[in-house]
């Protein structure tokens, strides 16, 4: 039986446990060095500052602060979304930007009122997002689904969220008896 599945360190190899002990930021930074640029044009484009704010507002509607015990409440989601945008191929950037504009202006055509997403209450914002994600128009659904995937990648993919979930032994938490037989 593999020792690491049952040891206190969970499934995290020893060198990663040592790196994590130095802090999540240092650990994370070490692993993003050498990331490959995408093929095609140089990624010089970035989001406008107001688009970064939109990304934060829409993203935090999708995954509100307080999820998973609030471990990722301090993440600057708009900023991260902007970085992810800059690192993406042009066709993904198109989708990422379109999802922001589409959502921000959606209340105008969904609710037939001259209000943007930012002027809505939390419950109304959620209703708008739900409506877009279940739209019968494939391109709208796809665009918002990609936004949702990006936001979950940025927030749930944070090592602290993974640790909270007990994934990959990141929490240093003893994993459940994965090897037990079913009753």
């Amino acid at each position, binding site marked *: *039986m*593999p020792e*690491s*599945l049952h040891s206190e360190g969970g*499934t*995290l*190899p020893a060198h990663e446990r040592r790196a994590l002990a130095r802090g999540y930021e240092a650990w994370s930074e070490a*692993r*993003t*060095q*050498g*990331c*490959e640029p*995408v*093929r*095609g044009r140089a990624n010089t484009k970035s989001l406008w500052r107001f688009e970064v704010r939109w990304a934060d507002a829409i993203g935090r*509607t*999708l*995954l*509100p602060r307080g*999820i*998973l015990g609030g471990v990722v409440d301090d993440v600057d989601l708009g900023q991260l979304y902007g970085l*992810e945008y800059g*690192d*993406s*191929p042009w*066709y*993904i950037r198109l989708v990422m930007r379109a999802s922001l504009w589409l959502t921000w202006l959606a209340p105008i055509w969904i609710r037939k009122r001259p209000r943007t997403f930012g002027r809505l209450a939390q419950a109304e*914002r*959620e209703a708008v*997002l739900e409506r877009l*994600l*279940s739209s019968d128009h*494939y391109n709208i*659904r*796809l665009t918002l*689904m990609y936004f*949702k*995937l990006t936001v*979950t*990648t*940025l927030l*749930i*993919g*944070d*090592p602290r*969220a*993974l640790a909270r*979930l*007990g*994934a*990959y*032994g990141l929490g240093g938490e003893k*994993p*459940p008896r*994965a*090897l*037990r*037989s*079913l009753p």
Partner: protein
Amino acid sequence: MTPGFFDAAQTGLPVDAADFVVVGSGAGGGAAARVLAQSGARVVVLEEGPLIETAKLSPVMRHSMATLFRNRGKQAAFGRATTPLLQGRCVGGTTFVNSAIIWRLPAQVLADWHARFGLAEGLPAAALDAAAATIEEEMHVRPVAEGSTAGRQDLLMRDGAERAHIEGRFLHRNERGCKGSGRCLHGCPNEAKQSTTINYLKRAAGDGAAIYAHAQVERVLIERGRAAGVSGHIGGSGPAARGRFRVGARKAVVVCASVIQSPNLLRRSGVASPALGEHFMAHPGTTVMGIYPDRVNMWVGASQGYEAYGLRDTLGVKLESINVPPEVAAARFPGVGGRLARYLERLDHVACWSVAVRAEAEGRIRPSRLLGDKVTYNLGARDVDRLRQGMQRLAEMHFLAGASEVVTGVHGLPEVISSADGLRCFDSAPLDPRAYTMMATHLFGGCRAGADPARSVVDPSLKVHGLEGLYVMDASIFPTNIGVNPQHSIMTIAALAAQRLS
């Protein structure tokens, strides 16, 4: 020529010529390089992606995508629906980021290739069997085992498959010392998975081969009807980055650049064939998540541990357990805000199982100024019908294994069903591929093999028709969709073809 692994961005590419120039270091390139180097030939392997240190691997999918996958994992096939395509882009290619699943080329597939494409002489069954056996021994192939690397979601799937009377087994994988870290997709942090980086390329380097990372081949140089070498540029970052290189091939250039890149490389090199870039095929698939009363923690154990293959010959689908990374699984839950947050609290109670379809659909691959490589692919109604039937069986298995809820993930169906009575909803699921969230991983075709030059790109020995010294040895030569995980078939065929070449 100095043997070993090098980052061309740091060292440059100080090789004027070799006996064999192998383009690509994945399943095909790794196996070909190993066999050719073992024969005593001077071999240089050129890989456009980076060489990744194990200490730099991360369990965060965003990091892994950025370092290990083509276009940061944001590559897609375009058609009526947009289908993400995942390809490794690093030393080891996709063998570095797959789940190490091993299946021999099915006998009926090979018989079909012999009968319809004239490959009996090039790919005889007995020789392939012998090559496959050697690879299985050298790559340490063995099944996932209960009490060892099987995770709870694998055991649940076994339970569900048995109750649904679908034949299955623990997956056979090429690994040595797997610790069940569940991180195959991120690159194995324990160097247990026998990717070509760990195994065949290392053996090839031991026999004198030089493996260069960040060496992107742009063209095969063809002179007087013969492949004379390759040219390209150095990527990555370092003192030699952006430099150009040219490496001569004294005996042959072996292209193993993958299903999407091989045909486009040949096209850029001036190879003209009506079949080039045609007959692109795949195993499109999706996942069905079951939510269980107890904790499953699908991230503990082998990344993929169990398969239900009983529907492979009848329905044309293969079912597998798969530990989808939490950040990706989270996006598959329905809803937003508080509703999504409540699901997230139960993410560790989820088991995720996938269905992969042996699709009949064929697409095409072309170079594109805008996209780099453009893949056009449209699934037909018959393929979608098989997908939805496979999903229905997965949902049924989840309930039989004790799930309290199943997330359907199909537009137009209830988001969640909470009893087996709800399974009937799949009968009315749309036959439009846009209703499903799919991904394609196993890719085939584009440089189809065959005896007829009008219908194929390479001949039965995998040499490009009408050109000397230019071979293709990857899944792009597969004339049909094989219906099983392709790594082993690619390696076997490449090893056999390389044996002949050496």
